[in-house]
């Protein structure tokens, strides 16, 4: 897409997304615009030149603090429904907030650790999903059932049978010392709903108790959306409790007030459990080797968005499947 002409009056470039057109074509009333959101995907707030900036405030005064931001060129609208509005503007009635909650992957305690293997795994940032039982057994055979390399390796055919940690946990809270972790997050900032988006061709969302979760809808790009609330099955949304003692530093991945926590795991779809089709079509070039076995690999992302604050986190997932039966 090109940039919009910003030399004159402010104009709006509006298009229907591919999903919008698809629903319009269906003619079943599913094209129903009922709400709006504002986004600022192009904005890099680190360019804001106040005293927080590494180079200090703008020399010409505070009126110039956002000069660079206001000159940001804006891309034309993209019709793919998942390509935009990644960062939304947020309405919060209190204007004196100095800190906002963030969401972080909780990897500090057992049961939630990510995979640390830098050769074939997700390099300490994400999880490894094994597509089928045979492939998982190959890995166990090669590494041994107690290998630390099995942290964050999920047996996609049955996550409950994973040897080590296989639950993905995302904690919400304030990452600042200014708000004590002994105090709960302000109720206004507490997430009431999480939206999990995953590629439906590869992944099935499972509860922390390893039960399948039904998606709310699948879009035209095969991205399934799951709306998870406290009422969802299997305690997927948990209230984080304030710490009691100062030495409880490992309770949360952030320093300040805790909010909500989302916990889930992943299963492999029938597509990747039964076939290597998607691995050869969309997977990485070459194979990865674990011991004497080789595996196809495919990288994808599970996106979690807080419906209240709009904060978003992408969790890298590497899917592996043995090249041999």
């Amino acid at each position, binding site marked *: 897409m090109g940039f*919009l002409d*910003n030399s004159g*009056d*402010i104009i*709006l*470039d*509006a298009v*229907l997304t591919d*999903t*919008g057109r698809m*629903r319009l074509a269906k003619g079943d009333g599913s*094209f129903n*615009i*009922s*709400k*709006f*959101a*504002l*986004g*600022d995907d192009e*904005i890099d*707030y*680190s360019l804001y030149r*106040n005293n*927080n900036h590494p180079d200090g405030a703008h020399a010409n005064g505070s009126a110039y603090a956002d000069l660079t*931001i206001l*000159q*940001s060129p*804006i*891309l034309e*609208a*993209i019709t793919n*429904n998942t390509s*935009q*509005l990644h*960062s*939304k*503007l*947020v*309405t*919060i009635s209190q*204007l*004196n*907030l*100095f*800190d*906002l909650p*963030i969401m972080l992957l909780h990897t500090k305690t057992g049961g939630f650790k990510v995979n640390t293997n830098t050769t074939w795994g997700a390099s300490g940032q994400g999880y490894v999903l094994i597509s089928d039982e045979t492939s998982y057994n190959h890995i166990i055979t090669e590494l041994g059932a107690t290998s630390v390399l099995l942290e964050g390796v999920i047996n996609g055919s049955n996550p409950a049978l994973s040897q080590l940690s296989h639950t993905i946990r995302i904690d919400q809270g304030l*990452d*600042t010392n200014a*708000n004590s972790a002994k105090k709960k997050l302000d109720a*206004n*900032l507490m997430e*009431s709903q999480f939206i999990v988006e995953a590629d439906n061709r590869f992944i099935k969302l499972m509860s922390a108790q390893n039960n399948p979760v039904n998606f*709310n*809808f699948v879009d035209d790009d095969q991205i399934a*959306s799951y709306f998870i609330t406290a009422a969802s099955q299997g305690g997927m949304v948990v209230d984080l409790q304030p710490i009691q003692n100062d030495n409880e530093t490992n309770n949360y991945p952030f320093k*300040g007030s805790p909010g909500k926590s989302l916990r889930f795991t992943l299963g492999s779809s029938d597509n990747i459990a039964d076939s290597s089709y998607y691995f050869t079509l969309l997977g990485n070039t070459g194979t990865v080797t674990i011991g004497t076995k080789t595996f196809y690999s495919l990288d994808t992302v599970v996106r979690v968005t807080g419906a*209240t*604050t709009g904060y978003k986190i992408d969790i890298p997932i590497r899917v592996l499947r043995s090249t041999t039966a």
Partner: protein
Amino acid sequence: MATTFKQLGQNDVTNTRTQLHEAIPMTGSLLSGTYGSFKSETNVKNFSHGMFQSVYDYPYLSSSANHIVDITMGYTTGSNNTTTHKQNGKKVQVYNQMAQVLMGHDVSGNIQQFDRDGNILAGGTKHKEVYFLSFSRLLVKDEIKKGTFSLTMMTGGGVGNPGTLNNDGSPLVLTDLNANTDFRVNSPAGEYGILYSGSTAQTSSAMGLIYYQAGIVVLTSSIFGTSSFATSSYAGGMVPVKKALTGTTIQENCNFIRHRIANISFNNTTELNSTIYFCRANHNEFNYSSNPSYLSGSRIRVKEKASDNPNSYITTIGLYSPDNELLAVAKTSEPIKKTPANEFTLRVRLDY
């Protein structure tokens, strides 16, 4: 409670219908002479069935070419048709096909002939030998705007250089005079007007019909009077119009008329059905952002102290379904600063 969505209320959505007009100028040189020599133009497509000829704005084998007009001709069985005439059956077929679409049938089920003044019930003069110019939807869009059509032709005894009028003396200019207030509605194909050759709308100067929604012009062969057409090439031998109609193919006749068109112009009409969404960002809304760069840790970058006003920058407006699917998206041409000290109504119009 923090939120990222705002519901659109009943007063935030409205529907409008507007008409958009574009001027469509078409020079004669485009129809004949620009892309190759006469009859061999690469922007003119002939078909093996020989029933019409298509004109493009660029050599038609190129993917850049746009279809602009189809030309054909025909005469009615009430004319002096004989089976010995060249393509006699096809010429009658074309006339009848166009007539039944544009004029319809009478109470007995017979195809109505093209009527000179549109007063079908009164009988009167019929256009029995006609040329058809059928403009592409790309140009016509929803319809030709009434009162804007003009066709300039060389109809004299000689044939000038392609696209010029110098050998013809005064050109024939046909317009749909006063058609914005004076048009006919007794056609199954929508509204139509009369093409007049003079500056006054009188029956004696009615030379054709223009069907606005169908984008079709019907020209009587009488516009050429006793003039002659060139045959094998424009510099070659000449044949009278009547002989051309009967003794040459439809394709040849299309060449003749295409070669004599000096200029065509009209305005098209596009009916825009729009839904306008008024996205109102009040002073106390959308002042924070979930952009990862908005925070350093959890600290808001644009604030130096808690009492500072928050601010954000709008670049995108997303319109969502109740199940949070992004159905439409709009971009601002530059970031718009949102603070608690300002309010915006962003007007997003979707055209259908």
